[in-house]
């Protein structure tokens, strides 16, 4: 589905811009500028407001990014459980640093705050799916699921 179709689907939902943005990101992994401008039109809001929404929420990206979004929790409980080592292992495995994407467009690496899986710190999520009790040794096995 392209973003025009998605926006049309949500047009009648009061306050539905955020839901529509989620749906667009599921397809494209980010929110293209044209989609934000069109969203403003579809929901009858100024472009500034649509752009304001797109940039307010940390799960939305206005820049292109890799298809599989890996987020690493750095909140205090994950921090003391060794999140930094997981970060280092992910950066090494993918050959990129945090807040960037692999050249082949497969993966994006981002920080996140607590994702509510704190029974198994440290935690990462890939496309919203949580992986708990992550350690550097487990990284390559987890990533293999997405290759």
């Amino acid at each position: 589905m392209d973003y025009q179709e998605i926006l049309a689907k949500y047009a009648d939902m009061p306050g539905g811009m955020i839901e529509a943005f989620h749906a667009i990101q599921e397809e494209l992994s980010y929110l293209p500028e044209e989609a934000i401008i069109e969203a403003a039109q579809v929901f009858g809001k100024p472009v500034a407001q649509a752009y304001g929404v797109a940039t307010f929420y940390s799960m939305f990206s206005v820049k292109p990014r890799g298809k599989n979004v890996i987020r690493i929790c750095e909140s205090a409980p994950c921090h003391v459980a060794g999140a930094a080592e997981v970060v280092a292992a992910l950066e090494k495995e993918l050959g990129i640093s945090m807040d960037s994407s692999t050249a082949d467009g497969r993966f994006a690496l981002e920080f996140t705050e607590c994702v509510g899986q704190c029974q198994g710190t440290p935690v990462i999520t890939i496309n919203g799916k949580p992986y708990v009790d992550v350690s550097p040794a487990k990284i390559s096995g987890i990533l293999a699921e997405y290759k």
Partner: protein
Amino acid sequence: MAEEMRIVLRNYGKIDPLKIDDYIALGGYDSLNKARSMSNPDLISEVKASNLRGRGGAGFNCGMKWNFAYQAQADQKYVICNADEGEPGTYKDRLIMENDPHTLLEGMAICAYAIGATKGYIYCRGEYPSVAKTLKLAIAQAKEKGVLGDFSIEVRLGAGAYVCGEETALIESIEGKRGEPRIKPPFPPVIGLWGKPTIVNNVETFANIPVIVEKGSAWYAAIGTPSYPGTKVVTLTGDVANKTFFEVPTSTTIREVIFQFGGGIAAGKEFKAVQIGGTSGAFIPASQLDTQIGFDAMTAIGAALGSGAVFVLDESRDLIDVTARIAKFFAHESCGKCAPCREGTMRVHDLMDKINGGKGVSADIALLNKLGRVMSYSCLCGLGQAAPSPVLSTIEHFSADYNAKLM
């Protein structure tokens, strides 16, 4: 010896959460029918008399809040469940929604009847896509069975903003806007979603409702500590032997939570500090471990029960490093609407990083203390007001840790 008592988690592990018949077989939706046989004022009085206070952090009397919305005149009213659960170390609402979604729907439907609303929303954090799926399935099943009557519920997904847990920011977000808190008053029970009277309650608050209606306010009011009766779901993280969750009466002490239920400190180390209520909570030293976790007992020691997250640190931990990490959280999550928080969280973060990096001087600590105090009363919403609390409490109780890092 304190014992676990399950009210909101009463069906945990006993039912298939994806099957409404399992819930109904255990008496599910009987309370809704009972509530609908009562008059609205009687129902509200019953909830009020139970002295159930909000489990989302502010601890407001639930029945009293409902009464404001009931008395407000409007052609439409709304019930919103706050399932934004963004407080680090907290996953209790997820446990309830994943394992017993109908308890939440039933609690919301009882509220809807009480205040005269026909439309409800569950604002579920974007980090819980599978929970949203479970909720949508439960809603579809409830609709098919017709148990909700004329009350309809919609699930809306957040998108990663801690401040959206604040009820007016949450309302802005459901309206499709940036999640910036509104100036209060007016409060949501008078002017809420799309300008209409709106009840916002936490997941755990709603989950208590069916049981209160079933067993009565007197039964509930007698559990735990009288000024904040009932139970609290507690989630344990950090250096405890059992990183787990449990539901206990609110008269349980912090010591029992950590050493009895949590099995004590991991790896045979000594206790250093505990932060309760999530990342905006105060750090508590060993001398205050015998405090009860109830709302007022916690407030009395300058701490907060908050979401019920319990984050334990052992003797080997660098408290300044952890506090600096927390300061970064607030600098990141400040919505920027008001200056004391937008600038203050950034300055607190800078100062904490400076001290953590070994470059601080004692004047920096004095400055942090002053800044923190100003923020606690001048910020617009609870985010900025509570943000300094980890810093202020560590300066108060663990000043040696700061001094050890000064130049």
